[in-house]
């Protein structure tokens, strides 16, 4: 295709002409790509056969947008004359990171601690702050899940696509234990009528973690000899198997209907009720259902911190060092006498245990579990948080959880787009959440394949601790 603007004939085409040509070509390709599924739509007309409706205008709009975007990019960022930054020179982002990172941890910690207070003050009361504190709990669960999976993926370098299986094991373990009649009767008979109703979460929490870790060992043992991507697919298969069993084994799990009326959380044995021995009365407060929500928030913060601290301590122990060595080079590890199977298994089980804790928390927060909550998308989301955050970096994972879960939640609130002069009242922003999520996953990978925080902090160092740039880290098979 020759452009009329390439005036100099036989000579090299001018950059502008090349850019224009590229823009037109990519516009045409976009139009063709979008033509079948955006240009046409098979619409259901009642119970009758499908009919076609046409949206060629929309299709053309996308094509023109892509063409214009590429043209602008070619003339600015991708200009051929522009000097490319040499490999190895620190990017301005890294400099900003170096300035911020010493303050990030305390600031993040303080924010996490005072978040309910801030929410209450800003919204002006307990009841109106409910939405924001719920959002905090929601993000907190993903921070915890991300940190749990970070042990498996980030430290040991094992790609686990079925992490949600352990989340499900934890949630179902708590749901089944706390609602099962024989256990309730036994507990009531031996430990007093009210004990189980009040203490069930605190008693079950370690049990859920142990059960999940056990499942981690059971599932991990046969498959940990496999290479990275095989391991990913097998863990995915296990995640799906557990979900399908939860759906189909109706006698045990109540199938797709799920398990409801799970007892609520108590303040270490003191119920959050309006009664005389309730939390509010004991502490001289006026009763408010928000007390329970705020307590839940602090529970998830504590559980997340537990995960983070355990990870930090484990990294300093021989087993943690073995994990990181395994991630970098499995063959070297084996040559040095590290038992790779056992090392992988401990990582798998530890990660699964924290997944189980998070699952138990999920069950006590929502007070209802069903297989719907444990789909592959959930696994992909947790994995995306870990990878986008920069595998192995705790702050990166936390930041990614806040941005992704918070951002997806904010997409629900884009009702201003519904105004008549933008996209019209039929526009439903929630429909686009997963679409944008998938797009963001691809875009971040292409832009920064090693995640937001790509550098590595050496665990063992001589004299001075230096950051290792992500470009210098090479991962072996694992």
């Amino acid at each position, binding site marked *: 295709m020759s452009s009329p603007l390439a005036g100099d004939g036989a000579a090299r085409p001018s950059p502008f002409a090349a850019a224009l040509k590229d823009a037109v070509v990519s516009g045409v390709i976009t139009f063709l790509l979008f033509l079948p*599924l955006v240009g*046409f*739509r098979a619409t259901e007309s009642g119970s009758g056969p499908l009919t076609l409706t046409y949206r060629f205008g929309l299709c053309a709009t996308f094509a023109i947008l892509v063409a214009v975007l590429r043209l602008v990019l070619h003339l600015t960022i991708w200009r051929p004359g522009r000097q490319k930054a040499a490999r190895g020179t620190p990017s301005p982002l890294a400099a900003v990171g170096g300035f911020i990172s010493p303050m990030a941890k305390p600031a993040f910690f303080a924010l996490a601690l005072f978040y309910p207070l801030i929410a209450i003050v800003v919204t002006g009361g307990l009841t109106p702050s409910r939405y924001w504190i719920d959002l905090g709990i929601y993000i907190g669960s993903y921070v915890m899940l991300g940190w749990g999976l970070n042990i498996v993926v980030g430290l040991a370098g094992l790609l686990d696509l079925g992490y949600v299986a352990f989340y499900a094991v934890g949630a179902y373990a708590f749901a089944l234990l706390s609602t099962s009649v024989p256990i309730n009767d036994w507990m009531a008979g031996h430990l007093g009528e009210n004990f189980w109703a009040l203490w069930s979460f605190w008693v079950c929490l370690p049990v859920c973690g142990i059960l999940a870790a056990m499942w981690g060992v059971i599932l991990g043992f*046969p498959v940990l000899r496999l290479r990275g*991507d095989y391991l990913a697919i097998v863990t995915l298969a296990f995640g799906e198997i557990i979900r399908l*069993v939860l759906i189909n084994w109706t006698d045990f799990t109540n199938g797709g209907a799920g398990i409801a009326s799970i007892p609520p959380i108590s303040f270490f044995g003191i119920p959050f009720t309006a009664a005389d021995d309730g939390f509010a009365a004991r502490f001289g407060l006026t009763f408010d259902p928000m007390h329970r929500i705020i307590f839940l928030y602090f529970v998830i913060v504590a559980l997340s911190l537990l995960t983070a601290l355990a990870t930090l301590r484990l990294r300093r122990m021989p087993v943690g060092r073995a994990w990181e060595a395994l991630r970098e080079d499995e063959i070297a590890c084996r040559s040095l006498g590290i038992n790779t199977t056992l090392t992988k298994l401990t990582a798998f089980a530890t990660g699964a245990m924290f997944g189980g804790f998070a699952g138990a928390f999920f069950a006590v927060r929502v007070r209802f579990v069903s297989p719907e909550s444990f789909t592959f998308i959930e696994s992909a989301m947790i994995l995306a948080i870990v990878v986008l955050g920069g595998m192995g970096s705790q702050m990166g994972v936390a930041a990614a959880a806040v941005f992704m879960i918070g951002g997806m939640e904010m997409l629900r609130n884009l009702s201003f787009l519904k105004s008549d002069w933008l996209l019209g009242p039929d526009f439903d922003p929630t429909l686009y959440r997963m679409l944008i*999520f998938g*797009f*963001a996953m691809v875009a971040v*990978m292409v832009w920064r394949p090693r995640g937001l925080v790509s550098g590595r902090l050496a665990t063992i160092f001589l004299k001075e601790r230096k950051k290792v740039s992500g470009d210098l880290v090479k991962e072996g098979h694992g």
Partner: protein
Amino acid sequence: MDVFLQQLINGLTLGSIYGLIAIGYTMVFGIIGMVNFAHGDVFMVSAFIGLIAFLLLTTVLGITSIFLVLAIVLVVAMIFTGLTSWAIERVAYRPLRGSFRLAPMISAIGMSILLSNFVQVAQGPRNKPLPPMLPDVIVLMDNNGYQVTLAYKQMFIMILTAVLLGGFWFLVQKTPLGRAQRACEQDRKMAALLGVDVDRTISLTFIIGAMLAAVAGVMYLMYYGVVNFNDGFVPGVKAFTAAVLGGIGSLPGAVLGGLLIGLIETFWSAYFSIEYKDVAAFSILAITLVFMPQGLLGRPEVEKV
């Protein structure tokens, strides 16, 4: 015996569809060592393209000959799916070639989510039903009222698969493109040094894989008469299982694995429980990988230090 025969026919039909998808997985894995997670969704997109083309031909242009319609639908679906797959490789995988191991896989998972939600947004979340095509059957056996039947569409699927596989075998074994592909599979760097355009070969691999998946997509649409934006995930994982079972990287293995998975699934549904048929397929994946990682026809993987 009669039930067995009927399930054999059903299983081979389903297995043909899985086999065609599995070739896409195994080819891409062989050449760039990556699990193309989005391939199942490419298959689903092709079924939707087939649906649109079918509606366009029958309701708007009013063509009545079913074979003409199917032929045009197949060609249209192959062209547009090939284009889609080419664009996916260009945008999401090529920039990550040579990056660290997990990056293309994560990108592929993102692409898979993007594709299924794109179809959901563009075409709506409900099932898209089509009127039944080729409804006639041949009765092979009549045993006290239990008829063993071979539907025309099953015959069509099996014959078309066989023809396509023959053509595909010719392409890989006898043409310059196939030679370049096999060279890249053995050693990408060396192939590049010897003048093979590696990027172009990889692109063409993606396009060919997607075209076979497109045929599978149109067959799926024709066989079941309904398609949904969610339909890519489970067939995708099953086809991947087929590729692993046959030995990933091996093309005859992918077809063999596909047929086996199809047979296992139908026999499991017929003789054991239909609820656990997906569990059976996923368990086979795990069992194969644990006890026979090289698959039925694959080469054992040797890790060089």
